[in-house]
């Protein structure tokens, strides 16, 4: 042992906790002052009634009278083509196969198109449906039957033309990761009624996870209890929810009691409210061990419902997730987020081609999403639930020519200037279409709705002012709509 090492050791021994306190007397004081004057405010933005428990999911009243109390967001990850489903452009038929005029290409950037691509006519046939005369393609024969319950947004715009940033912008209002998702903001603002289930549930289907990963349902800088909880329709509904082998429910109870005791002791000493929300999360998890398997078990649904949705219990499918979404909303879950992956029809391979994979996706979603709207309607839940459907952007009227050469299959490139989404229920007009695109569906001509406008409008229907739903972080107030967002009044019933 060298003398230097020994000296070091002696110094370390000499510096005791008292030294630390003595040296930090001003530092600690400043830290204490910071927390005293409320630097880190993690309490909800909306005041609760006196006597309410401190659970982060305690339901809170909206800013003003709400049209809807819950949301089911059907995110079509990969961005489906509006030109094959809703935005019918006969002019595009005539231009089919011709070179794209330079006026459409000047100053534009595309994800994959290079040089001069060819125009691509609609890859489906279209017909008017319902009393509203909404035009829907033959690829959505079930959805065509419910157009009178739906408001179409035909000219939605976004800034992003790549999947991950596009999905982030749609779900968090920002194109970079690190911001709270829509469901987090909503549960932060309104809490959730069912105290045995998470307020924000995420259900995934399709071959992959969303391109932007879990950030699209993360809580960002909001307290982590508000992040989306992913539930599954096969196996354990929530990962690690079952007790490990050899651990009984009693033992689990004892373990949680012990942890809670320690946490409560800590709370008495420090008084950080985050400790209480941690305790309530342990309790929630314990209750979920009973409630989640029950609610996620769709076997109990009658046969007629399974036929309506096209569900098969036990498999991971969009159909099962739609049915689950209804069950969750019915039992007081605030926000259910579905992602269905696989819409990215560039035409580079079969699974991502308008004439193959895209048709499969249409068949996977057509019946269940239509059934979801009708099922909520017949239960009297549609007027208090918002259903939103759409991808993170749209597709080009041009045939994609990746690297300047023809792709082996038919496909379209990413397009952010105009695409179609639809909303149903929750105080939106029924059988209505808002916005128009030009004759080839390239630019929005009227009724533009930016992603932030959509978010502001959805929050408005939930009774919240998107400019008041804020969280103070790193020196400023943040919102879902950042500094943007106008309510689209014309689509409100």
């Amino acid at each position, binding site marked *: 042992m060298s003398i230097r090492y020994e000296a070091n050791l002696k110094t370390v021994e000499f510096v005791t906790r008292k030294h630390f306190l003595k040296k930090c007397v001003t530092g600690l004081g400043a830290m204490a002052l910071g927390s005293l004057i409320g630097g880190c405010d993690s309490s909800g933005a909306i005041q609760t009634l006196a006597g309410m428990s401190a659970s982060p999911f305690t339901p809170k009243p909206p800013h003003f009278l709400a049209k809807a109390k819950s949301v089911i967001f059907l995110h079509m990850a990969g961005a489906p083509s509006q030109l094959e489903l809703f935005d019918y452009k006969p002019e595009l038929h005539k231009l089919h196969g011709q070179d794209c005029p330079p006026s459409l290409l000047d100053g534009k950037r595309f994800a994959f198109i290079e040089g001069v691509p060819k125009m691509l006519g609609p890859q489906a046939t279209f017909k008017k449906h319902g009393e509203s005369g909404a035009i829907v393609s033959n690829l959505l024969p079930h959805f065509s039957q419910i157009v009178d319950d739906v408001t179409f947004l035909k000219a939605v715009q976004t800034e992003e033309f790549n999947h991950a940033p596009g999905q982030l912008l749609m779900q968090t209002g920002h194109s970079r990761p690190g911001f709270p998702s829509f469901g987090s903001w909503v549960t932060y603002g309104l809490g959730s009624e069912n105290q045995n289930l998470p307020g924000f549930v995420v259900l995934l289907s399709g071959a992959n996870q969303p391109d932007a990963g879990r950030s699209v349902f993360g809580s960002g800088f909001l307290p982590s209890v508000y992040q989306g909880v992913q539930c599954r329709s096969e196996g354990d509904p929530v990962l690690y929810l079952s007790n490990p082998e050899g651990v009984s429910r009693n033992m689990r109870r004892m373990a949680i009691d012990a942890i809670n005791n320690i946490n409560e002791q800590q709370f008495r000493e420090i008084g950080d409210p985050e400790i209480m929300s941690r305790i309530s999360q342990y309790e929630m998890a314990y209750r979920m061990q009973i409630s989640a398997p029950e609610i996620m078990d769709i076997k109990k649904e009658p046969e007629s419902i399974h036929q309506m949705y096209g569900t098969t219990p036990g498999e991971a499918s969009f159909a099962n997730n739609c049915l689950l979404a209804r069950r969750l909303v019915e039992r007081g879950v605030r926000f259910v987020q579905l992602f269905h992956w696989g819409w990215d029809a560039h035409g580079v391979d079969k699974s991502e081609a308008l004439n193959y994979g895209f048709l499969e996706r249409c068949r996977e979603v057509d019946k269940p999403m239509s059934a979801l709207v009708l099922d909520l309607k017949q239960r*009297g839940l549609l007027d208090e639930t918002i259903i939103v459907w759409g991808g993170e952007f749209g597709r080009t009227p041009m045939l994609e020519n990746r690297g300047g050469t023809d792709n082996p299959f038919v496909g379209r490139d990413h397009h952010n200037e105009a695409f179609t989404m639809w909303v149903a229920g929750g105080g939106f007009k029924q059988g209505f279409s808002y916005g128009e695109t030009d004759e080839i569906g390239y630019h929005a001509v009227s009724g533009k709705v930016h992603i932030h406008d959509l978010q502001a409008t959805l929050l408005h229907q939930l009774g919240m002012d998107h400019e008041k739903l804020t969280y103070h972080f790193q020196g400023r107030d943040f919102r879902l709509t950042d500094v943007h967002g106008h309510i689209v009044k014309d689509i409100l019933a």
Partner: protein
Amino acid sequence: MKSHQTINKQKKYSWFSFLSAGLVLLLLATGYFWIVLNETGRADLLLFFGRFHILLVHLPIALLLLAAIMEIFSRFRSFDYLGQSVTFVLTLAAISSVISVLAGFMLSTGGGYNESLLNSHKWWGIGFTVFTFIALGFKIFTISNLKLSEFIYSTALFIAVVSLFAASHFGGSLTHGQNYLTAYMPGTIKNLLFINTDEEIYVIDNIEEAAIFADLVFPIFNDRCISCHNPDRIEGELRLDTFDQLIRGGESGPVIVSSSPAESDLFRRIIAPRNDDGRMPPGNRRPLTEHQVAIIQWWITEGAHPDLLVGHANRPPEMEPVLARLAGLETEQTGILSNHVEPANATIIAGLINEGIVITPVSQQHNYLRAGFVNVVNPDPGHIQSLHQISSQLAWLDLSHTPVTDDHLLHISGLHSLTRLNLNYTLITDVGIRQIEKLENLEHLSLAGTAITDAALETLSELPNLRQVYIWQTNVTDDGADWLIRKNPLLKADRGYTLTEPDTIILPAEAGYSY
């Protein structure tokens, strides 16, 4: 007898001439006084006397009503002695009404009142005085036909009373604002009286494209300021009828300091306290509303520009509710939620929450509550009974997917404020449904997945405000549902939906074009 009558008549003549002479003198004196004051530049003295109008005006009101009541009671034998005093009281009413009218004219020189309201008030007031005099005249003198003069007397007295109510109402509206009476009136009464409470709200269709000055600020000046600040009558040498005149300012210079409301005389005056001399609108006139003040403040802060658009200006958050109101974005409230209710007792709510019941206000702007039982494993009838403590506030109740039975529903009839009731997938039957017949405010009723039959429809058909009922997966027949709709055509009964399977399925590579 005859001589006695003659003496009586002479007495009457002398008394009435005395009264008339007095009033003529009063009118002449007032006219003279008026001219002198105007010429000597002491118009403020007119206002000094004018302000007594508010005080004096109550005398003729009380006196005329008293005269009318005495007249009615004098027809009964036990009160017949009242008949002798009616003339005296009526005379006092007539005198005081003339003085009130004169004072009223003086007060109106101060300006700043809503012109059409002021006109109505003025003419009803004058009518009141005129008919009081007619009544008094026919009370004192009887023309040859005794019955006819009696009839004219009672008619004139009746018209005077009606004019009195009208004049007082318009006068009240002048000082307290037009919707003072109706602000807290229950919605049902408003509907009965066809009162439209939105009369003062105007909606701007495209708020983003609206000019702040022309569309938001000027209408306020036009409504509240221009009656004293116009080309014909330029109080304080200030005109507010055009933008240029406004910027030019008044006798003490410019009234708007661009970007600085605090230094702008106009803004300082509209927010000055009621007892401040410089306050505008002056005196006891209604101050500008909070929203109007906010709009003017915002416009000045943004540079007091003549044609800046709403969409191009910076918007502080406090402007949003103001703009939302102008844009017609405020969520409209119908039915019981538009009525005011006192907040429920916090201790009671805390107690109910401890039982596991989810209770929240329907919004931060309401005292009405919603309650849900999603966290109550096995609600017992006592739970429903305990909700009676908040029965005035409880508007929405969700009992769906709970084992609630007819026993629970025994307690539901007391929850009289309910507008939405969700009983989906509960164990209730036709017997329990009868309990909801007293829920007069119910608009929205969900009964999907229950065992109810056509026998329940009688009760449903009698709920006056019911607009939507869900009877999917029940034992209600198609005929029953049709009967219900015929009985209440405003009601929608939802019986469920099915999707039709398509004839053809589009298979890969068969759709439309391919390359």
